[in-house]
């Protein structure tokens, strides 16, 4: 996908004016946040698990070459193949060649952020191979030719009315007078349509949340079961995963999985955690004949041991964006590429270059919530600062230095939007309002504050955090 991160500012302003998007974002902000808080409260060991999960990843990264070689050895022992892809183009070529060798016409896909990163669907389609996304959210955006707007809920920006319109447009052979009002009806239709694709597919491509060196196992975490149908029905299963997904043992995988779902959707555990090791065994009545893993570098080895090393611990849970006031105001598409929110603001410049993504590290209010909820304790605000310092040294600092703050203030023009954002406990606003606890004026918010004062958001924790942030700056 061609990045549109350069126009973050324009994208963001457009997003703030998009009523449909604001309606969709408004619905979702609280669900994830409240559910995570509940899951955390239900597990007294949660904070200790975070510490251990972090330590496991650090240990793995320090021995990444050893663990990847061990992982490879076990995959081969179980009858699978490992392919190494230094770049996105290498990964695309490897996957296309595998699909062509398999004589594939139709490929089903489980949800994979790395698949989005390398743009595998377009590459396969260009070669005449049909690639069908099977995760419901991914399917919804695929038929709209849109990128995901959230790493675990890719269609979070859509309303059911939009989905209905898309389905009527896309599924033309179904009766025109069918009722498609409720999510359950839409889900049932997608299930029926995609079931045919599952059964027809020649190759299934999935991502991997973890690669376990102990056993040569790839792990996917899903709720729908689409990833499982994707990988157990076709003749060939291809796993596409970036190298930092490695973990040493099954025990280590357990620790990370204990914090993953709780941080992501607030579930105690996802419905399906699937551990796959090699192709079907001689006695097995089902499963793929061939099992291939494509290990992608694409910039990771450069991050290793450097300023952005900590980002390699990311397990793609999405908590940082769920809790981010800027993401909450503008949604994921404004970020212009595959990875949105705070993790995207750090990762995207590493993957596509700071020239393309220079605005993103400014898309922050520096409230620190992302870091405080990140299960892997990644210092996201600090790394955004690193990027900005680099840019500053190069004399490239964009004019909108405090872009996130400005966006925020912009949102305050809109009472409803403001209410929602305030629910997130906006420290910047609290800071601005400091003594009076009311705003008489906000940058860019003249239209709204001309007529009345805005109540400033309260909440000790975040004001405290903000002070700490400020102290460190």
């Amino acid at each position, binding site marked *: 996908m061609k990045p549109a991160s350069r126009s973050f500012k324009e994208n963001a302003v457009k997003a703030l004016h998009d009523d449909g998007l604001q309606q969709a974002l408004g619905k*979702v902000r609280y669900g994830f946040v409240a559910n995570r808080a509940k899951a955390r409260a239900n597990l*007294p*060991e949660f904070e200790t*698990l975070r510490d*251990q999960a972090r330590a496991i990843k650090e240990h793995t990264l320090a*021995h*990444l*070459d*050893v663990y*990847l070689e*061990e992982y490879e050895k*076990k995959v081969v022992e*179980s009858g699978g193949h490992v392919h*190494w*892809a*230094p770049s996105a183009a290498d990964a695309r070529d490897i996957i296309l060649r595998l699909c062509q060798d398999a004589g594939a016409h139709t490929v089903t896909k489980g949800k994979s952020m790395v698949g989005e990163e390398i743009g595998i669907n377009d590459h396969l389609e260009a070669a005449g191979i049909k690639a069908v996304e*099977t995760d*419901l*959210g991914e399917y919804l955006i695929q038929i709209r030719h849109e990128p995901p707007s959230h790493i675990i809920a890719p269609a*979070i920006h859509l309303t*059911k009315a939009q*989905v209905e319109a898309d389905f009527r447009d896309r599924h033309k052979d179904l009766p025109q007078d069918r009722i498609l009002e409720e*999510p*359950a009806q*839409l*889900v*049932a239709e997608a299930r029926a349509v995609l*079931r045919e694709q*599952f*059964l027809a597919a020649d190759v299934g491509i999935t991502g991997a949340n973890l690669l376990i060196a*102990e056993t040569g*196992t790839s792990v996917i975490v899903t*709720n*729908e*079961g689409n990833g*499982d*149908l994707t990988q157990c029905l076709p003749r060939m299963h291809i796993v596409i995963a970036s190298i930092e997904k490695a973990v040493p*043992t*099954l*025990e280590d995988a*357990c620790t990370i*999985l204990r914090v993953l779902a709780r941080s992501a*959707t607030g*579930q*105690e*555990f996802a*419905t*399906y955690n*699937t*551990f796959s*090791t090699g192709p*079907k065994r001689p006695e*097995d*009545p*089902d*499963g793929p004949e061939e099992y291939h893993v494509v290990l992608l*570098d694409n910039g990771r080895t*450069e991050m*290793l*041991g450097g300023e952005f090393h900590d980002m390699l611990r990311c397990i793609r849970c999405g908590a940082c964006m769920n809790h981010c006031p800027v993401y909450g105001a503008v949604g994921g598409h404004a970020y212009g590429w595959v990875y949105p929110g705070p993790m995207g603001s750090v990762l995207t410049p590493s993957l596509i270059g700071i020239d393309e993504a220079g605005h993103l590290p400014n898309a922050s209010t520096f409230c620190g919530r992302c870091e405080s909820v990140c299960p892997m304790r990644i210092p996201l605000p600090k790394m955004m600062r690193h990027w900005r310092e680099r840019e500053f040294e190069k004399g490239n600092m964009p004019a909108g230095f405090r872009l996130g703050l400005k966006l925020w203030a912009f949102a305050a023009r809109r009472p409803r939007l403001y209410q929602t954002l305030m629910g997130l406990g906006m420290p910047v606003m609290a800071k601005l309002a400091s003594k009076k606890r009311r705003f008489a004026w906000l940058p860019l918010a003249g239209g709204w504050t001309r007529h009345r004062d805005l109540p400033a958001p309260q909440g000790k924790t975040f004001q405290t955090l903000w002070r700490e942030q400020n102290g460190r700056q």
Partner: protein
Amino acid sequence: MSNSSQRSAVLDAIRLSLGVKEGEKSRETPARKRLERHPHNIVPERARRGAKASISLFNETLEGQGATVNRVKTLAAVPELVAAYLRSNNLPAEFRTGDDNLLAKIPWGKTPSLTRQQGRGQGSDAVTMSRAIAAAAETGTLFLTSGPDNPTTLNFLPDTHIALIRAGDILGSYEDAWNRLRDSYGERSLPRAVNLISGPSRTADIEQVIVMGAHGPRRFFVIIVG
């Protein structure tokens, strides 16, 4: 580039970034030891309760996640329970299983209204049944292993999936369950697929509304025996 040169390109880049010197074998030791010993990390208290408490936690958690859970004393009671469940959900009295030994021991013939077919899952299956080799009470999670006994397709293709587990196989933690698998499959070795299942298939991709039966089973019925 060939696969082997791409392989060394990635591995060399890792070593360069980590500052690994040529022939520095000693740094591999902690990694190899970890793989060999697979030490436990912290295991939550809720996963370390006794057998009885584990079964009730398992039951409670799984039901909270949208599954139906029933317990019977003996295998002989299973056919009636299955027949009643299917009847109450207006489902056909027909289901498919793999070649699992324990499922084969169930006296299906005593309930002639039930038809049991065998084999891997089919796209047209309404109801299937598998046996879970172990379960972790901490999140109401069943461990199902692939193979002729319990083909993986049975877990995902039907509308209604029934899973049977012996009470004694309900353990506290995921780690306990993995150790159970290590006993059966050996160290550093797993069957093709291990499915950790904690409820029926679901999605919240449309406006965050939870809908059951996204692609996998709409209903998940768990029978504890013993």
